[in-house]
């Protein structure tokens, strides 16, 4: 059979599964993964259809990459191959929502925002604020275990996911977990799929435990010129009785879209009204004792600030974005070392750091003269990674132009557990058809 005949055959088979209207062939430019364009974009409507697409792909040895909103498909190493891009866009329903139980079961393509709007009248929510929260789907959030500053107070999505439905590489569908908030029946396969970036199975349904929506909110901005002063503010808060939902250090570049030209410590309180009022007063006194300038934002203004921060990488030009994870006590040092290590290559880098969790985000525009400088940039990132590796730190490249990815591994070294990860990949995707090459160590 010629390649063309095979392509036609595959196309016919895909059409019989999802219908002609739900296939894009050739794939539009916007669906390119790094610099590779898939042969087909398919948009199934049900988990049965997802399974059928996978059965076909498995039989024909076609590589499949799943996508949610597709905004973040550049997260990962260069794909080895991409034949089918499977979009969950049409799988966007709320399947079950039990306000009295604080649980919900959502189709993978359901946007986070859609669900949070539906839950609002019940005063419940999913407390996630990943970058691009306004677009992210719950399946993409689960697959990337994607978080934002609210991780400080609410943990990662991983911690709120109580059940999944997954279509495996061969099209067999399985269920992990369940619909109850506490469950230790059998192995927790949720953990296997959450954060696996579409390399072990395609998530078709996600069950969450929800949180009550806090009654009130306020954000305080502590402004200063020095990280050390802001960091000592953060330390005092962390060691006090206060319970911020988010705690974020931001540099000048990150603050400028918010209309401020100084470094800041942002502290977000989400609580009952009396507790928010109490914390605001306490934090004000603290700012005073440290002689920090202070701005107070309530409810709507507070929310708007964090929403803007979640879109930061769209508000200022970025084409290289890194995430460091260090011990919380090393956060400020991580800010300094990464500033030093990257400022040579990054124009206008923004820096966002969570002093409570040790997560640091860096983004900026690659300022290099020519492509010949790319290996050098790759080296800087690897050096930064090596510096932190000895101190338990990790550096992940969350976004980079494909031409840079040729010079730097996106993920870094996995350590002694790599053989287990490789064995899991073999056990769940023996033919390597799911996002091949994109995850750690080229899984």
């Amino acid at each position, binding site marked *: 059979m010629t390649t063309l005949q095979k392509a036609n055959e595959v196309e016919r088979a895909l059409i019989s599964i999802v219908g002609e209207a739900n296939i894009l062939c050739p794939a539009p430019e916007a669906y390119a993964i790094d610099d590779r364009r898939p042969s087909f974009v398919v948009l199934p409507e049900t988990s049965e259809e997802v399974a059928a697409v996978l059965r076909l792909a498995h039989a024909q040895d076609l590589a499949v990459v799943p996508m949610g909103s597709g905004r973040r498909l550049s997260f990962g190493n260069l794909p080895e191959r991409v034949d089918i891009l499977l979009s969950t866009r049409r799988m966007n329903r709320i399947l079950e929502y039990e*306000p009295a139980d604080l649980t919900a079961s959502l189709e993978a393509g359901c946007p986070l925002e859609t669900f949070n709007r539906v839950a609002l009248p019940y005063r419940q929510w999913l407390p996630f604020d990943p970058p691009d929260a306004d677009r992210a789907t719950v399946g993409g959030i689960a697959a990337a275990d994607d978080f934002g500053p609210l991780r400080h107070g609410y943990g990662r999505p991983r911690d709120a996911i109580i059940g999944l439905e997954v279509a495996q590489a061969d099209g067999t569908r399985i269920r992990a977990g369940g619909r109850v908030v506490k469950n230790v*029946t059998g192995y927790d396969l949720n953990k296997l799929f959450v954060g696996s970036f579409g390399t072990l199975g395609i998530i078709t349904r996600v069950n969450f435990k929800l949180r009550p929506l806090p009654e009130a909110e306020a954000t305080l901005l502590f402004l200063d010129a020095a990280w050390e002063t802001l960091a000592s503010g953060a330390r005092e808060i962390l060691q006090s009785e206060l319970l911020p939902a988010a705690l974020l250090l931001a540099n000048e570049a990150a603050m400028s879209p918010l209309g401020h030209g100084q470094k800041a410590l942002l502290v977000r309180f989400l609580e009952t009204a009396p507790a928010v009022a109490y914390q605001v007063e306490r934090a004000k006194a603290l700012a005073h004792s440290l002689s920090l300038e202070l701005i107070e934002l309530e409810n709507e203004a507070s929310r708007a600030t964090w929403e803007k921060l979640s879109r930061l990488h769209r508000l200022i030009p970025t084409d290289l974005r890194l995430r460091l994870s260090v*011990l919380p006590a090393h956060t400020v040092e991580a800010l300094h070392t990464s500033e030093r290590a990257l400022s040579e290559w990054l124009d206008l880098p923004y820096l966002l750091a969570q002093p409570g969790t040790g997560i640091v985000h860096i983004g900026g525009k690659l300022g290099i003269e020519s492509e010949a400088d790319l290996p050098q940039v790759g080296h800087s990132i690897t050096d930064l990674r090596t510096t932190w590796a000895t101190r338990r730190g990790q550096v992940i490249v969350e976004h980079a132009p494909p031409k840079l990815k040729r010079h730097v591994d996106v993920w870094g070294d996995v350590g002694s557990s790599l053989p287990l990860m490789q064995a899991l990949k073999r056990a769940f995707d023996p033919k390597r058809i799911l996002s091949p090459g994109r995850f750690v160590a080229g899984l």
Partner: protein
Amino acid sequence: MASWIAELKEIVGSEDVITDPEQLLVYECDGLSIHKHLPSAVVFPESAEEVANVVKVLWRHRVPFLARGAGTGLSGGAVAVEGGVILELARMNRILEIDYENQLAVVEPGVINLMLTRAVADAGYFYAPDPSSQMACTLGGNVAENAGGPHCLKYGMTVHHILGLDVVLPDGEIVTLGGHGTDAIGYDLLGLFIGSEGTFGIATKITVRLTRRPQAVKTLLADFLSVEDASRAVSAIIAAGILPSALEMMDRATIEAVEASVYAAGLPTDAAAVLLIEVDGLAASVEYDAGRIFEICRANGARQILVARDEGERARLWAGRKGAFGALGRISPDLMVQDAVIPRSKLPEVLPEIYRIAARYGLRMANVFHAGDGNLHPNICFDGRNPDEVQRVKEACREIMELCVRVGGSLTGEHGVGLDKIAYMPLVFTEDDLEAMARVRAVFDPEGLCNPGKVLPVRRCRAF
């Protein structure tokens, strides 16, 4: 004497390997006495290296083995069904590091849960997961079972408090899972290992998250004249968007047993059920939430609501709750501590049905459980010497499990599947689900030597 026994003695010293059947008797079962089996030997390693070396020998000789902490497990997890070797980790009980700035501690697996909290209490910290067995159970056992406890409603289970593990795999290799305080990259093997019930390997070093003690705590005891009223109050509190740090229910049978025991806490013995409710956090919200809880309990028929006035009263109420299993154990020769979960809104419907099931089998039942999580513990008092009664207990348990699954629940909320619930697994999982679990198990333990016979049912010579 098997040659491998001599090899084990060389590693840990001959006095730290026991094979005498009389001495082995102590290790015949865990906290659930209906499953018994003698191990072929028990070894007492004192370090990760010793664990690894022991495991290497057993791997080479294809001898099955399992780790044991305090043996308080209630699903038969620490029983050597296939006559394997038990590695008793009680001696690996050192706290290796406490780091307040990063809010973490590094411990050996044999550290007793409550000892860790005691070690950090003066600095204003605690270790959040608090199983009712916390005075005895080990952190290694907690990791293996993903243990919960009364305060897991707000603070989450063990898995939410473990930052990293060193694990001896079934072939004796030591691997690090998780980042020990920072994020790890790749698949979440740490999350996968926690709750694997000792079948993926042996945890030898554990990094835990420490939690700062809240500014204020308030403990309430509300009593009700019917279990349904108490259940409705539970649902109403959750539905009102309040997140108590604990929301526990005890029924009359439990109250009576507690009050007749050394744990007597002054509970009203004429109540049908009491709710023990705790809120913690900032003083301002604690006051506020306690007020709302007060109203909700009243509106749902609470007769009396008592607020603990001081730390002493609070401790007494908790001693009553945490001693409840012990108290129940004393009033009958044997106690079946069951563990199942349902969606919390189903409590008012399911609880009365559970009593009916027990009545139908002529069994005495007491309920004491984590109501806020929908995590039931229907405990059945019985006499293990009476085979007919044992049979009825088993049948009643199966009916209860079926009922819980029917309303959207699951088989276990914290004690695990172990040996005890294998037969029920097909109630909640399809063959394909179980096959996927078996595949994961085979990745960690390709030879099937690590705690065999647990968690997954065996079909056609194949572990599922």
